[in-house]
């Protein structure tokens, strides 16, 4: 019992030390292209961005935590708790984890958008997410959707999310911008639109998916 008590904190300390925590960098004119395995884009000057992609997330499916593979990068100008652009690639088999739905390349953008809204509404705090508009869009030449959604937080602050997304045989891609309607959303929407236009898929998108890091599974 005593050995276990000591072993657990030691293991956690070791694992914590090994974990590659994403770190932030401020973009300037020489440092604006954000490359990840599957995609790259140009981050607006003056924004901070993560330098490496997150490769997994923990999601509660039927109240049980699960560790799922993904690829995610984030950019923000004033701090992620205030507003952020998040670019995510989910793999076909786990594209809508709480709905337990997969994607396939033949799905219509409207179907994908409807599933995505349902998936978001299953997440904490987004149960009453309202769809303000849902229209077709093109991302990197692919047919997709542009959803504009809104919710109120516990303080009554209206938070808006705009999401451009598409599906292909390599998975489900979303480029989200989330900000309070008050002041921030309109101020930075143009930067977001530029980032969406700069989005390109990389050859790495067609590589086989990586393994979930062993230590990440400890959290499930």
């Amino acid at each position: 019992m005593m050995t276990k008590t000591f072993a657990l904190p030691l293991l956690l300390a070791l694992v914590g030390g090994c974990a590659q925590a994403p770190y932030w960098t401020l973009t300037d004119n020489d440092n604006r292209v954000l490359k990840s395995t599957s995609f790259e884009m140009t981050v607006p000057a003056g924004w901070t961005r993560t330098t490496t992609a997150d490769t997994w997330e923990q999601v509660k499916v039927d109240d049980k935590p699960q560790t799922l593979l993904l690829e995610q990068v984030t950019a923000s100008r004033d701090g992620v708790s205030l507003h952020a652009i998040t670019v995510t690639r989910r793999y076909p088999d786990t594209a809508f984890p709480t709905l337990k739905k997969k994607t396939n390349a033949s799905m219509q953008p409207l179907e994908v958008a409807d599933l995505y809204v349902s998936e978001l509404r299953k997440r904490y705090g987004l149960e009453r997410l309202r769809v303000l508009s849902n229209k077709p869009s093109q991302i990197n030449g692919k047919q997709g959707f542009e959803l504009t959604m809104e919710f109120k937080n516990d303080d009554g602050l209206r938070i808006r999310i705009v999401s451009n997304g598409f599906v292909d045989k390599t998975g489900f891609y979303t480029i989200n911008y989330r900000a309070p309607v008050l002041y921030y959303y309109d101020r930075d929407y143009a930067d977001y639109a530029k980032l969406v236009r700069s989005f390109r898929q990389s050859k790495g998108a067609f590589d086989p998916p990586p393994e979930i890091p062993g230590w990440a599974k400890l959290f499930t």
Partner: protein
Amino acid sequence: MKRLLGLFFLSLLVSGCATTGDVTAFKDANDTSKIQEGEGRLWHEASGYDTTIERSGQIYEDRRATAYLQGVMDRLYPEFKGKIHVHLYDSTQLNAFALPNGSIYFNIGLLARIGSEAQLAAVLGHEAAHFVEKHSFRQRVSAKNASAFAVSGIPFASLAAVSSISGFSRDLEREADMKGYARLVKAGYDPHEAHKAFEQLAKEVKALGIQEPYFFSSHPQLVERIDTFKELAARQKSGGRVGAEEYNAVVQPIRLEALRKDLGQDRYKSVILVMEDANLRRYYPAAGYYYLGEAYIRRDEKNDSQKALQAFQTAEKLAPNYAPTYKGLGMHYMKAGNKVRAREYFSKYLTLASKDAGDRAYVQQYISSLK
């Protein structure tokens, strides 16, 4: 008979507890201003929770329905008029809850499922009894609960522990049943309606395997409650107000909205359960068949595509002006490769849908691609 005698003695015991010690039930609206020591904090927390609910957009805005529910409550508890406030809560879960300050929240999901004013009165009577009998305060003064909520860091967790958000002890629930039932009879409602609301809930809880710790989903308790109401009603003459027509006139639009929200949150099983049940379906507008079709598509089991088509066709026949049905039919025929019919249905959708329909642009795109 044994059960009734048992309940009678239990009720005496429980109400005995209510009047012993420091906690006494409210007598009327004036009495609510004489809050006992320690009770003020509970009311303050409840007011904070009211504010959070309102600010964060969790109130379902329907003035007509809210006024109707308030009217039923005032009929049940006339001496508390102006002190018990009924709100519609924007959630499709089958629940209703009372806060210690007299705020009663009624989920639109529960409202959609019940079939008459008398059934509504059975639920409202129960919830208001929690407030009048000060069940929250009584639960809080017990040392066991006090230590339980003291360690929790969840916002409003302490309030949840002592309000009907998460259910009271079995004895207090029984007392609320008895007091609520007495109010129902006194207000002139048909006592034979009371158990019907709970019967439907029990059926749904069982069919969907709901395990959330909500009061109405606690299955053994629900079964016991149904038996109790049946036995109590058996001792009463039939008759009294049912109010099915009035109720359904008010709730009909909310039912369709509840189906839409259920589907939007991927509760397609619930939509299928409701719309496949002839007894429940009769309360729903015919346009509900459109949501049944969409629910089959979400479920995506064997033959569901065909079932979806049949549901859309029924919606087309019974509610020919409901635009979304034509989008559903258009999508079906587009996937089946029938371009002519797909175009025809998509065009009809565009004719009937409002100019600002969110998915108009997609449908226009589909029509172009089908030429």
